[in-house]
C-alpha cells in the first residue's frame, strides 16, 4: 500500500521515521518530511500539550487526505504519523512524509495533507501552562490556507 497512517500516543523519532520511509523506490527523486513540534514561546510558555482525538474519524480522514494527495500530485508514497495524549515542549506532534519523482509534487503533497489535517481531522489541542489549562482556538487562517487547493 502506498499510504500509511499511524495514530499513537508514544513519542516517535523523526529521523528514524524518515529513513524508514526512504526505502529504495524506482522513480523516486524527491522526499519531503514535515514535522510539527510542540511550541512553547518564551513570552507565553506552556508546560505540556494534550491532544484529544476521535480515533476512527481521525484515521479515516488522514487516509483520505493521503490518498487524495497521491492521486492529485502523483506521489509514489505518503505517510502520516499523528500523536495523541500528553506531550512536552519541543516533542514532535505530527509527521507527514511524501515521496515523488520531482520536488514540487513532494512539497505540494505534504502541504496539501497538512492543510487538510489542520482543519478537517478531529484532533483538539489543550495547552497546560503555569496559569492553567486552555483549549487552543482554531485559526481562521487555516481555513483560508486550505482554499489554495480548490
Amino acid at each position, binding site marked *: 500500500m502506498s499510504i500509511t497512517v499511524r495514530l499513537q500516543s508514544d513519542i516517535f523519532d523523526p529521523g528514524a521515521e524518515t529513513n524508514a520511509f526512504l526505502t529504495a523506490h524506482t522513480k523516486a527523486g524527491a522526499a519531503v518530511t514535515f514535522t510539527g513540534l510542540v511550541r512553547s514561546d518564551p513570552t507565553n510558555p506552556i508546560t505540556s500539550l494534550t491532544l*484529544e482525538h*476521535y480515533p476512527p*474519524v481521525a484515521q479515516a480522514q488522514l487516509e483520505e487526505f493521503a490518498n487524495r494527495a497521491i492521486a492529485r500530485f502523483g506521489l509514489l508514497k505518503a505517510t502520516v504519523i499523528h500523536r495523541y495524549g500528553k506531550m512536552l515542549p519541543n516533542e514532535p506532534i505530527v509527521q507527514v512524509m511524501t515521496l515523488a519523482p520531482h520536488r514540487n509534487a513532494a512539497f505540494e503533497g505534504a502541504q496539501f495533507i497538512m492543510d487538510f489535517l489542520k*482543519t478537517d481531522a*478531529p*484532533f*483538539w*489541542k489543550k495547552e497546560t501552562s503555569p496559569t492553567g489549562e486552555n*483549549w487552543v482556538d*482554531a485559526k481562521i487562517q487555516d481555513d483560508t490556507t486550505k482554499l489554495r487547493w480548490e
Partner: protein
Amino acid sequence: MKILYFAWLRERLNRGEETVFPPASVKTIAELMDWLATKDEAIALAFEKRDLIKTALDETIVEHDTPIKNAKTIAFFPPMTGG
C-alpha cells in the same frame, strides 16, 4: 442513539458520551441539536454558537442539515486544532 462529545464540549458537559432517544420528529442533526438543547441547559449554552459546533454521523463528518435516518452514533465537537 449514541451521542459523543469531544474537547471543551466534553469538559463543559462533564460527559464524553450518552445514549438518547429522540422522537421521530427529529429528522436532521440541526433538529437533534435543538432537541438536546431543550432537555439540558448546559447543552443549550454550549450549542449557542452553532457554527462553532462540528458534527460526525456514524464516523463521517457532515453538515448540520444532514438527515439522521438510522444513525447509530452522532458526535459533536469544536473546530479541529490538530497538527
